[in-house]
């Protein structure tokens, strides 16, 4: 566990101290089913922020991220893990949100000089993952990168599918398994796509972000290894490729050589043309999440899902959030 934990914990305590009287108004309409697959347009008990970055100069490389408790009645305890995309090690901190409360902060305040991804998990008083009653969290990240990209990435929300506390987790537990298997939590993507991108020859650039969601948040998360994909031009010709990705996060600008295609990418997607690509992690049934940033115009989006995996699991340390 990295050392900067204390700082963000102190920040979170400030938010906790200002709990507000709850509004009890309910949204009109039908309840959103927890079984609907993970999405960045729903609420959940687990949030994935696909990218945070904080460079040497926060005026050009910074991320502001926010987490909102959409429940007007109940406070929520949240355990946040900031995963270093290069090493896979995670910084952990609790965050306590009153009813309807939102909390935002800059990555440079809590994890300067690091680029990676964030997972936020709703937990109970012991730090065990919570069930369907905690499917009320949402969030977003405003990302600004030294490479010249900027955009807003909504957090991908995953719903709990059980009630109460995660079965098997209690005050004596030191770890808990987050199983994204469609039984405990929603499943995660196995195959995803960048649906359309124009040619670099037309002055546009795209930055691909891929995160492997596996491993142990108390030690290190798993490395990606290899990404396999297909690139199509706008005349539906397909070109296969393999990319090496030795860390838990890949951040790579799409260009000649990244990935290596035959012919090169900028020949496949030549001036005035567009292409698209579909990716997965090589080596079996492995889940991932990802995003793509565009410029110009500036923008970002999480990758759309093509197919799902029920095999992803993350081990998280269990410790009382203290609120």
């Amino acid at each position, binding site marked *: 566990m990295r050392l900067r934990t204390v700082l963000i914990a102190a920040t979170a305590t400030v938010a906790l101290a200002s709990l507000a009287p709850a509004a009890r108004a309910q949204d009109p309409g039908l309840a959103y089913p927890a079984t609907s697959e993970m999405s960045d*347009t729903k609420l959940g008990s687990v949030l994935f922020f696909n990218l945070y970055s904080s460079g040497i100069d926060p005026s050009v490389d910074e991320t502001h991220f926010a987490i909102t408790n959409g429940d007007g009645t109940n406070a929520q305890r949240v355990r946040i893990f900031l995963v270093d995309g290069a090493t896979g090690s995670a910084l952990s901190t609790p965050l306590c*949100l009153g009813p309807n409360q939102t909390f935002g902060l800059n990555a440079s305040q809590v994890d300067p000089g690091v680029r990676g991804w964030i997972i936020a998990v709703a937990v109970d008083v012991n730090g065990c993952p919570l069930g369907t009653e905690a499917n009320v969290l949402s969030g977003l990240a405003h990302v600004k990168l030294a490479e010249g990209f900027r955009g807003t990435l909504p957090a991908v929300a995953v719903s709990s599918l059980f009630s109460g506390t995660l079965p098997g987790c209690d005050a004596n537990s030191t770890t808990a398994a987050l199983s994204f298997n469609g039984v405990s939590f929603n499943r995660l993507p196995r195959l995803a796509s960048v649906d359309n991108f124009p040619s670099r020859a037309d002055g546009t650039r795209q930055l691909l972000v891929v995160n492997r969601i596996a491993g142990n948040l108390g030690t290190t998360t798993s490395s990606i290894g290899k990404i396999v994909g297909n690139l199509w031009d706008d005349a539906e010709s397909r070109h296969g490729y393999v990319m090496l990705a030795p860390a838990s996060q890949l951040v790579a600008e799409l260009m000649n050589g990244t990935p290596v295609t035959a012919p090169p990418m900028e020949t496949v997607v030549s001036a005035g043309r567009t292409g698209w690509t579909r990716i997965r992690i090589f080596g079996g049934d492995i889940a991932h999440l990802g995003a793509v940033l565009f410029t110009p115009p500036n923008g970002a989006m999480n990758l759309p899902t*093509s197919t799902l995996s029920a095999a992803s699991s993350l081990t998280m340390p269990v410790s009382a959030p203290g609120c």
Partner: protein
Amino acid sequence: MLKRARLLFLLAIVAAPKLSVAAEPGLVYPLASEASDQRRGNVLFYNLFTSKAANPAAEDTRLTITNHSETSANFVHLFFVDGTSGLVASNFICLTAAQTASFRASDVMPDFRGYLIAVSVDGVVGCPIGDTFQTNSNRLSGQAHVKSGKFQGTLPAVAAAALFNGVQPGCDANSVTSTLRFNGVNNDGYTRLPRSLGLDEIRSRTDGHAVLLVLNHIAGDLSGGLNPMGGVSGALLGFTGATFPFNFNVVKSQKFTQISNSFPVTTPSFTTVIPSGTTGWARFANTSDVPLLGAALFKGAGGVNLRSRTLTSNGTLVFPVESPSC
């Protein structure tokens, strides 16, 4: 009045591809999963397009659409909804297997602002089609890359999936119109749409931040015009969670405005609810039981579709049945 233009998009449907048919590894994404901008579908909602013909460098939108099927072409009926009048300009785009396409709003709808609905149809009659073959399910996806002055961002299209196989039940060669029902009913309609929405975070305007809000009313007649939005209720929530309700009425089918002290009207006003150094959030719902879609663009920081908080099964759109012109 908008002209109903056709034949603008004639892509290479005649160039039959010779593709290998590779199964996608992984578990099939369930059709019944609710509408989302991270899934593929048979109906796409692009929450915003805008363009200024005189200055597309400052205001324009690049719209994209991709057919994920590696084996089948996809015929798509496009409806550009003028956000002011609700009037509709329609068109077709025909995509070969695994084809992607893009076009600029300044080329096809210059000087208009609104939202785009794309409906997958059969290639002969033009009836809405669904999951003909399991491997071809959830075929379409799309994006809108929006530039509007100091606001710019990427808004992926919100996709709804058809819950019927083949041609929509009740639609045939004699049909003049059909009804798209976003009711979540198998063998009848499409996945449901949001009734209430959340905007996850709003930073203080006093600190130089600005948020451009887009709300779209999804009800009416795609052959005639979309209905005005009508009443919207919601709340602005300060960083402590304190709630400040508001109501407003929209006589257009799209609300497009910055969040400020004058909109939405709250007591106290916006910059008091979210003062310098703090953040808040907001939620919105149509006062009628009809779908509401929306997005937000952040000054200098991108954009997002608004998050669905609850759903409605009452969404309907009257749909003109016309043979694809490609």
